[in-house]
């Protein structure tokens, strides 16, 4: 059976290959850019008989810096790429078994630029990636 904690930890471990990114398997209360967090989203149970397969969707959210920071935008452009040492997609898919926790992992989409508002603090620039996980139920 898939363990959500293992999945989140393995996703963060895959992201750790990106230089300078502070990755967390869990949601960050006050993220200090550049940072990444993992948020569980939809879970589709009973994808095979006897709950043999489940499809888990997770959101990887990355914060790169304030909107006015040109360097943050340059950094985000590299993170959005589908390949390369700073590609979030490539990092997540570098181990599609997530250290043996699941059967397969696919990064299905990315939102592109997003502005995240933080209470009492400047808004930060970032993006969200949708990760589809095929796991044993």
């Amino acid at each position: 059976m898939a363990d959500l904690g293992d999945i989140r930890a393995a996703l963060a471990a895959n992201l750790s290959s990106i230089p300078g990114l502070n990755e967390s398997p869990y949601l960050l209360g006050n993220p200090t850019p550049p940072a990444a967090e993992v948020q569980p989203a939809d879970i589709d149970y009973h994808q095979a008989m006897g709950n043999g397969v489940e499809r888990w969707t997770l959101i990887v959210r990355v914060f790169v810096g304030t909107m006015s920071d040109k360097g943050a935008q340059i950094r985000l452009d590299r993170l959005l790429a589908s390949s390369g040492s700073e590609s979030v997609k490539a990092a997540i898919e570098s181990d599609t078994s997530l250290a043996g926790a699941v059967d397969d992992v696919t990064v299905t989409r990315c939102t592109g630029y997003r502005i995240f508002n933080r209470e009492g603090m400047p808004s930060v620039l970032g993006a969200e990636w949708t990760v589809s996980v095929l796991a044993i139920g």
Partner: protein
Amino acid sequence: MPKYVHKDATITVNGTALSDHANQVTIEDSAEEVDLTGFTPSGYREFGQGLKDATITCTFFQDYAAGSVDSILATMYSSGAAGTIVVKPTSATVSATNPTYTMVAKLFSYGPVAGAVGDAATVECSFRHSGTAGVVRATA
């Protein structure tokens, strides 16, 4: 058993349970309709059952591991040998309300790779009747 949601069927192919890789199963058993209508004042046709045919159709998530979907189905198809397919509505013990349906069958086609980009890889199989008993229903 009351009305239920189909989510726990068991499917075994030649003794190997493939249920946890299957997301669809259908048993179809049918007989030809033979017209036996004679001259009659009733105005209705009369039909009798002719030759029967049976097919069990399954969709599996493809898996190339030893002893899993591909190895079992590919072997069955390439050898042309008959195999035994057993389907049960739920994983509970066989009973009057959870009968097994058993059929000796062959595979006449097998597509080991299928699916669009981004889709889970699946394989659809039609097990065609090749024994003499048809689909055998058992409650014990």
